């Protein structure tokens, strides 16, 4: 599945706020066509790393390369072309509350492409249908949608420009187990159909098991381990042990063995 080309490569990244250093020389690669699950304790800085990569947080040290270019050093045109090639699903969806579901999905197209209104509408409807939402939600505003639907619309918006990478910040948090499993499946299907690379911040062990090709673990500001779920389960590192082999982890381990 994954070839050797790294679409994202982070080296020696240091990010901090005031006197607190959240990321302390963290390094990480995301390879083309893989789903990378990114785990770590609450407050370990998973979202911080994601936000640093997509340029929402300034860094103190280190390099970040996306498609071989550092977005922070790129000129405006280069940065825009990188931004068109990634999609971001924020933890709370971050849908524009004054736009309908369909308009939310159309928004990036409207901003970046010169398409006919008909084509935009058809593509947006198609994207919504690909994430499992029918025409009945087109005219609904985010406030009228359930939590799971908001996440789906947000995913459709993240995919609006057919990006090469999508960043997912805890995509299954706040969903019931059935909804979460469906969402995992959806991510997997879309990733295969569209050939995406996925960077997924998650706490959900089921997601890690179901979707991720590789897992990276963040602890104390560093990426302490990367590898498949089997590698993680076999690891003797105390934090990994308690994370993957705690009560919840053991059930996953059980499933992996059988």
């Amino acid at each position: 599945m994954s070839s050797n080309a790294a679409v994202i490569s982070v080296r020696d990244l240091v990010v901090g706020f005031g006197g607190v250093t959240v990321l302390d020389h963290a390094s990480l690669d995301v390879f083309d066509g893989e789903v990378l699950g990114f785990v770590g304790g609450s407050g370990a800085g998973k979202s911080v790393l994601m936000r640093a990569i997509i340029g929402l947080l300034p860094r103190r040290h280190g390099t970040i390369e996306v498609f071989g270019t550092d977005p922070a050093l790129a000129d405006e045109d280069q940065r825009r072309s990188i931004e068109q090639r990634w999609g971001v699903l924020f933890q709370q969806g971050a849908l524009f509350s004054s736009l309908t579901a369909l308009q939310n999905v159309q928004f990036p197209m409207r901003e970046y492409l010169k398409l006919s209104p008909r084509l935009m509408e058809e593509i947006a409807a198609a994207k919504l249908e690909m994430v499992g939402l029918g025409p009945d939600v087109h005219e609904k505003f985010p406030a009228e949608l359930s939590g799971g639907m908001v996440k789906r619309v947000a995913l459709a918006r993240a995919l609006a420009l057919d990006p090469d990478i999508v960043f997912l910040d805890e995509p299954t948090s706040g969903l019931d187990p059935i909804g979460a499993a469906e969402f995992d499946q959806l991510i997997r299907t879309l990733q295969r159909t569209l050939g995406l690379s996925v960077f997924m911040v998650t706490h959900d062990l089921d997601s890690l098991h179901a979707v991720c090709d590789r897992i990276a673990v963040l602890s104390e500001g560093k990426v302490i381990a990367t590898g498949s779920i089997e590698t993680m389960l076999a690891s003797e590192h105390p934090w990994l042990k308690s994370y993957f082999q705690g009560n919840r982890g053991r059930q996953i381990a059980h499933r992996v063995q059988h």
Partner: protein
Amino acid sequence: MSAAALDATADGTSVALTATGAWTVERAAELERIVDAAARRYQATPSIDIDLAKLERLDTFGAWLIERLKRTLIAAGATARIVGLSDSDRGLIEELRLVNQAPAQRHARPNPAVAALDGIGRAVAEMGWSLVLIAHLLGALTAAALRTIAHPTRLRLTSIVHHLERVGWRAVPIILLSTFVIGAILAQQGIFRFRSFGADIYVVDMVSVLVLREVGVLIVCVMVAGRSGSAYTAELGAMKMREEIDALRTMGLDPIEVLVLPRVIALVIAVPLLTFLGSMAALYGAGLVCWLYGGMAPEIFLERLREAIWLPTFEVGMIKAPFMALTIGLVACVEGFEVDGSAASLGQRTTASVVKSIFLVIALDGLFAMFFAGIGM
């Protein structure tokens, strides 16, 4: 990456369309034209093969346009097939074969005249409704206040002091400055006009009565509505959006008692104090201008002030202040609770809060003017 194209080879009654290049998002606009042209040109052809074997890249945009071409041709009565599909593109084409099958729901645009009437009707109904909501909140607030009087320990003193600091203490500098300037301007204009009648001294009468009865309290209320009323609406609205108000309710707490009562009490205390300070600053400004611009010695100004005003002049302004504060607080909280999920509605409600409270304060001032005239104050 070569340019995207659709090459046609005719073979008797059938046509083979070969898609080449990258059918991706960057070329979507160009591809749409190509596809539409092909659909028009070959709609009478009985059999069409769309060959994708030579595609370099395909994404959702390209795949949808191919699917759309196929559907248009089939709808025109042709037999259209997609051939030469590579394994990597198969999933995408399959996925898009399933989408947009339901007929698009067209939303009929209403007649503009009807829409205009509809808008007016809604605005009028909304105005009436907001008065009902204000009355409703006033009732709920009174009930909460009575409950608090019965159980004084339930009074949220910390919250009141906190809001008092925000809407009272921190408003002092800007209130002092603006009322000072207003007083100065009134005096300057008065001196300028009255001088031609040789009636300079009556500037003191005009400024003092105007400031103490009307202008002081009105300026303060306008400032407070803009400064604190809007903040109340935005806070409560954001809390409503984030379900904080529902959380309070489920814990058995009354949002009126917890959120509205302390805010309104703080306003009712702060506005009269600010009115007093503002009126004094305006008189000070007026006195200073009379002295420096009008050449009227401060002693003469004060002497004239004593003759021009009596206690009721001051009382009229001060009596109005708490009622106006109550109006501002009620309107701000009503609008805050009316915010629904969207960011736009938060903005609309905050605007509505300021506009309505300023208008109601002025309307209330008119009622008070009639009332005080009636009782001879």
